[in-house]
């Protein structure tokens, strides 16, 4: 039972990752692909934050009378990752808008048909 509670977070995170991965590889709509990419991204954030948690620990703000703190390093890495993630999302969405203007569709199979690439 302790093993299940101790690893529940990791397993849910992996489930979310795979949900995002499935959306990316199985759906043809480009906006939905980007949503899938974002789900994957957020679940990676959660994996890092899960590793940083300490039982009975406080948020890493030094104050008197507190001995136990969570690990601040994963928090810093993920702060950076969130902002970079939004930058890449906006770039992806700009590409989607551009593709829509060039091809008139954002469905992957229709784009391939127009390109005669499949």
């Amino acid at each position, binding site marked *: 039972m*302790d093993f299940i*509670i*101790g*690893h*529940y*977070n*990791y397993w*849910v995170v*992996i*489930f*979310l*990752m*795979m*949900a995002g*991965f*499935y*959306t990316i*590889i*199985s*759906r*043809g*709509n480009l*906006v939905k692909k*980007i*949503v899938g990419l*974002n789900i994957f991204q957020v679940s990676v954030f959660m994996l890092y*934050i899960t*590793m*940083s*948690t*300490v*039982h009975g*620990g406080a*948020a*890493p*703000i*030094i104050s008197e009378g507190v001995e*136990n*703190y*969570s690990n*601040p390093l994963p*928090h*810093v890495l*993920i*702060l*950076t990752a*969130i*902002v*970079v993630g*939004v*930058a*890449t999302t*906006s*770039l992806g969405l*700009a590409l*989607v*808008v551009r593709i829509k203007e060039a091809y008139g569709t*954002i*469905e992957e199979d*229709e784009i391939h048909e127009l390109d005669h690439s499949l």
Partner: protein
Amino acid sequence: MIDVIINVTLLAFLAITAVAIIRMSNLFAIIMLFSMFSFLSAGVFIVMDAIDVAFTEAAVGTGVSTVLMLATLALTKDQKEKQPVAHRPWLPLTVVIVTGSALVYGTLDIPPFGDPDAPAQTHVAPEYLERSIPETGVQNVVTSVLASYRGFDTLGEVTVVFTAGIAVMLLIGGRRRKEELEQPQGDPDDA
């Protein structure tokens, strides 16, 4: 104990939202559900003591991402995802299940959630916690690491955001102006 229950509930909600996103085909609903997903994850971050991450996720992940996606939806005017004619989910499902089981196999050796003796907790993290106040005078250790110890990292992050901003402007911004110059009337569809 109570935070474990909140944690378990929030993560279950996240899983349900993710499945709902996969099953939906209305793009507006998908984006709204993603916004919810992001906000729920901010709640999980608060339960796991990562308040700075929760702030950023709630503001940037939930707010800015959703606005960007809605703007894309408005520009592409595509409201519904086209359902594939011959829907064969088996190949992607197999890939996902194999990858997922490999990852779960990898977690079996990981120290349990919240273990204070895990290698991640005993390596350099105590140094940062001890030396933050004497060396930088900042109480919030996340801030002192972000802006002081790893300041160059943050500079790199700004470079990435700047590059992405320029790329977006090149992709969408410049062409608009050129179109207006070439045909001053403008395409009636483009309104």
